[in-house]
């Protein structure tokens, strides 16, 4: 089980990106993290992945404290980040360098087949479309058989059709080994389609504002009333998470002040 225990992150320039986030994620659970920009969503993933360390609290996977990248935790970034000097197959097998050649070839071939890119095994990354490249990045992470897979706005750079396609594809791949997924996104639809639980964050510093269970059977019908209802709940929570800030800042005075500045 992944345990995130009261973690906070203050950068050396005194910016508090995250404050007191706690989250327990069951094996095989899919959690979506949504929130406005600058609410520390990506920072949260970087702390869980071990790429950065929290300044307070700690992250543990099955009792193992995470202080640096861990073999059971995989991550897919917003950009594919493929290595341009390796072929697609070599990119997918990048983390398997220490395995016997036959095993590596077999696992890479199977994973490429699972993401539907078997025929692209020997091409350079520059020849792939954005969606294909992101699928290769997914395959590169999944071929390691991670217990936890972190996805940082994985489909946000893709067009709407490819995005929906890849969301379904991700769920299909998830069903193979059922890793824990934490998906950071700013797309509420993406959160509802994928997640068992949606964490709504609020900014400055990043905190959890609301936690919404999405109890719908998969595959989820994007047109159903239940889907719509879940979406509205998340949207409402998101609105409130931002409203709060305005009442604190006192919007009225602010705008008058701003107007004076303009003149």
């Amino acid at each position: 089980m992944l345990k995130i225990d009261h973690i906070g992150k203050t950068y050396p320039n005194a910016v508090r990106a995250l404050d007191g986030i706690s989250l327990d994620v069951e094996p095989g659970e899919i959690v979506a993290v949504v929130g406005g920009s600058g609410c520390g969503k990506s920072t949260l993933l970087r702390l869980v992945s071990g790429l950065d360390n929290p300044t307070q609290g700690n992250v543990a996977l099955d009792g193992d404290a995470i202080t640096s990248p861990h073999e059971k935790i995989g991550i897919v970034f917003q950009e594919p980040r493929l290595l341009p000097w390796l072929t697609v197959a070599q990119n997918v097998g990048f983390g398997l360098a220490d395995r016997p050649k036959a095993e590596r070839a077999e696992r890479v071939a199977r994973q490429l087949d699972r993401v539907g890119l078997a025929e692209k095994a020997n091409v350079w990354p520059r020849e792939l479309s954005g969606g294909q490249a992101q699928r290769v990045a997914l395959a590169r992470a999944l071929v390691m058989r991670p217990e936890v897979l972190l996805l940082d706005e994985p489909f946000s750079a893709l067009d709407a059709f490819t995005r929906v396609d890849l969301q379904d594809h991700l769920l299909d791949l998830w069903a193979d080994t059922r890793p824990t997924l934490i998906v950071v996104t700013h797309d509420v639809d993406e959160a509802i389609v994928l997640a068992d639980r949606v964490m709504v964050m609020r900014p400055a510093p990043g905190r959890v504002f609301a936690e919404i269970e999405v109890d719908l059977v998969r595959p989820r019908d994007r047109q159903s009333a239940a889907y719509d209802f879940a979406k509205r709940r998340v949207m409402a929570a998101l609105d409130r998470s931002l409203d709060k800030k305005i009442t604190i800042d006192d919007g009225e005075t602010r705008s008058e002040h701003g107007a004076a500045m303009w003149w």
Partner: protein
Amino acid sequence: MSLAEPTVAARAPRPLARYARPALGLILPVGLAAAWEIAVRMGLSDGRLVPPPSRIWATLTELAATGELQRHVAVTVGRVAAGFAFGVAAGTLAGALTGYSAFVRRLIDPSLQALRAIPSLAWVPLFILWLGIFESSKVTLIAVGVFFPVYLGVMGAVLSVDRKIVEVGRVFRLSGAQMVRRILLPAVLPAYVIALRQGLGLGWMFVVAAELLGASEGLGYLLVDGQQLGKPAQIVAAIVVFAVIGKITDWLLVAATAPFLRWEDRYARA
């Protein structure tokens, strides 16, 4: 598939275009040389100080017949090769260390930059005092010339490796050595090749300087000899040989590294 065929056919260069395109670059030099040859033959100039191509060619064949040309070329190429090897080795090592470690960079980069500001020819008297007038001082001068572009190129390339790609290496928990071998080296390779080509160009520049300042053989010696004995054809012949060998070595360098750079997503592939 049938739809794709015409595109493939259209992309394959026609035999004529394949030879015509490189030939385009020959029009200007060949045209000028031919014009000058005709001018001298017609008596418009005696061609004493600027010898026509035929006389340069005659000088070259004469020098080649006695084996003199081959000897001078071999000596010069040997000096460039030795100086290039030392310069590249030192420049790569220093560039990689300063690029990789901020501490080493702060420690030695200011000194190296200060040394770089010294015109390299200013070292010549010192090198001759230290190392004598024979090969060592010449090779050292060439190595110094090669060192700086390679050093700067490698350091700059390592410093500008994309953080996001390095993070991929961290996610897969590469050790320091693995990070260098599997991420940093391939990432800097395109810039490294450019640094090597610049280094090689400077190597050829400095071999001439070294040979002009005192040598009994080598292409630079042919230049001095031609000047002292008033043989402009020999000077131009030596210059032509420099141009040809310089171009060939550069081409060899590019050809040798091209297989490692096929992955590049470049603006110009042709």
